[in-house]
């Protein structure tokens, strides 16, 4: 097997392995970044071959037992009508399932992984080759985050504070992949962002009080 410019490659690889160490990240953070960077390269390689290895989530839907959508997050580019059609189909399919059935559905060329928490269905669509059990864990982690944030979350919290539910989701999942596996770090980031938001909004009310709009 021939190397193309091997000394250079070796140098770069050495640099890259030092890079993690330089930043003094703990093992978990480093490995997470490591995986991400290798994944980039692998995606590039695989997209050159027969299919692009899309191992991310395609979309996530939250809906009530009556089929009302409470949150929808799409990680693929589709038109509005397509999104509506897909949501309707998936919601119908999931609502038709009986209580004790397994959490996985096959639909078109995707797998739908869903779980019901109280009155809300949490539903993700992943590629056929994905590990469905870990997707269930991702859903569970998201519910835990919501629970921690709202304090014993219920459907009404998500209805009246839907934008916060989105912010939490965006802090946990980026581009369809889980970005941070530590609950504490995710919640801390959201706390800080919320504080920033309050600071940004506060001066307005003060000015209004004085009489200057």
């Amino acid at each position, binding site marked *: 097997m021939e190397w193309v410019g091997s000394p250079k490659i070796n140098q770069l690889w050495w640099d890259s392995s030092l890079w993690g160490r330089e930043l003094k990240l703990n093992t978990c953070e480093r490995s997470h970044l490591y995986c991400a960077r*290798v994944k980039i390269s692998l995606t590039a390689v695989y997209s050159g071959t027969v299919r692009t290895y899309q191992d991310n989530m395609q979309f996530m839907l939250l809906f009530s037992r009556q089929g009302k959508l409470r949150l929808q997050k799409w990680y693929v580019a589709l038109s509005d009508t397509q999104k509506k059609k897909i949501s309707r189909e998936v919601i119908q399919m999931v609502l038709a399932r009986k209580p004790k059935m397994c959490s996985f559905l096959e639909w078109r060329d995707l797998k739908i992984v869903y779980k019901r928490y109280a009155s809300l269905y949490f539903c993700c669509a992943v590629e056929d080759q994905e590990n*469905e059990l870990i997707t269930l864990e991702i859903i569970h982690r998201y519910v835990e985050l919501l629970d921690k944030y709202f304090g014993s979350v219920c459907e009404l919290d998500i*209805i009246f504070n839907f934008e916060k539910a989105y912010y939490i989701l*965006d802090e946990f999942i*980026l581009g369809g992949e889980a*970005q941070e596996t530590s609950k504490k770090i995710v919640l801390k980031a959201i706390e800080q962002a919320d504080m920033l938001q309050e600071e940004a909004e506060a001066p307005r009310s003060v000015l209004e009080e004085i009489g200057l709009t």
Partner: protein
Amino acid sequence: MSPSVCLQEMIRVIRGARTQGEERGVIQRECAAIRAQFRQADSGGRSHNLAKLLYVHMLGYPAHFGQMECVRLIASSKYSEKRIGYLGAMMLLDEKQDASLLITNSIKNDLSHSSQHVQSLALCTLACMGSAEMCRDLAPEIERLLKASNSYIKKKAALCAVHIVRKIPELGEMFTPSSFLIVLNSDTLYLHYLSHSVPELVQIMKNLVTSGYSPEHNVAGISDPFLQVRILRLLRILGRNNDAASDAMNDLLAQVATNTDSSKTAGSAVLYETVLTIMDIRSESGLRVLAVNILGRFLLNNDRNIRYISMTSLQKIVQTDHTAVQRHRGTIVDCLKDQDASVKRRALELSLALVSAANIRSMMKELLLFLSTCPPELRSHAASGIFNAAERYAPSQRWHIDTILHVLVTAGGDVRDETVPNLIQLITAASELHCYTVHKLYRALISDIVQQSLVQVACWCIGEYGDLLLKGECEEITPMQVTEDDVLDALETVLQSHMSTPTSRGFALTAIMKLSTRITNNVDRIRSVVSIYGSCIDVELQQRAVEYNALFKKYDHMRYFTMSYCTVILEFGCRSRLSLYFNIHDLLLMHILDNLLLFSYSQ
């Protein structure tokens, strides 16, 4: 114009609406107010208005007039407005909208913002809805962020880069210099290069599994299952077709497979990924046996999810490790009777793959039982699977014909179109079973004429071997005493029933005609039936009836000749299509020639 209310109040009002019309009214009023507010240059509650619009959008109402407002809010300097603006962009704009390009510049600026939260908003939006053009413009920024910033931004930038590479694969090379791995053109070269990283990955994984209880990463006793699964998947890609890499990970995989506690889903997820990895790489045989055993254990689990995924994985290895999977055949066949449609589907696939010459009879019993109770969406797949299995492993011709008949009776509406000619061919070939077959088919025909494929085959058979039916003796089956009238009645019922398709009617008419040479007493009855259909509305049927009429009148001496036994299967559809292009006499000549050829083949 009513004063605009705050978001929560609006939600309350909308939920309080008792009818769809009332809700629509409320929303139209609110949207009008929001539109007016958007048009005003300066507005204090811009973020609240956009939030209201996003809620309305989620309910399914049009909200496209908010797109420009999103663009404006993203460009604002206040964090609260940026936050909702970006959310709006992710919900309302997608890469197909032209407006999405307008936010490229704002994203670019925000990527260099001093606050990491603003940077993270921009990265999140880009990774969610970045189109190819946006990605191309902003790729250098992402590269810079990957090198320079803190870990919070770095991880987001990394995932953003993954999105960029998915959209524009060529840019993968851009992210490689400066402390990134190089992407080379050749797969093998690249993976060989990456295999150097395997020891490092293995070390990280070992640390995760053995030591370090970190409460924030822990899920049900497994330390950071998300990361473990990711690493295992990476190892799988690296170890594929690569002996050296596979060797390096053997120990680790064995350790993870034996030590992971699978009582909760998190543990099962890690074990599942481990099994998939073992199956995909060039692992040693002991490891493969371990993996199959784990899958076998999963198969007996009470949790339906676990059973489902174990069957999915067994499906992947059933070709390569056939004997190992055969050991679990009993459990898999039991899963056919499960209530859950997903489990049933998996069990069906796996059962069809496990059919072999040794177990064909017992498996077919189970599969036929399944066919009678299976959900409609699985029927056609099950039927075609059964046909394939029967074709490959049929222990005898009679068993084969019986099986096909059983399928036609149970699920005749869901079989493919080729089934009818295939079955006809099969029957013709089994010459010693003609008597048995025709009796069985006659019985099926008089009991039920709903299943069209069964009707077609039965008509054809009765037409061909009607004399055997009328003779009334058969070794293999107790024969019914059938008179010519009974047979003609049955065929006429098919002709006249509103349930019969035109094809079935065609078959029935041809069968009646053929019987004119097999029977002696009722030729007049046949002649009258045929002449009636000479004025039928259906063109195909009329064509045939007129031809046959002509056979009776002008070419009576050739009737026996043309209606004799056929040993070569005609393509029925082909002939009828041709008939539309020729006039009757030419057609009849062709028909006669057709049968002449047949006759010569049968000599």
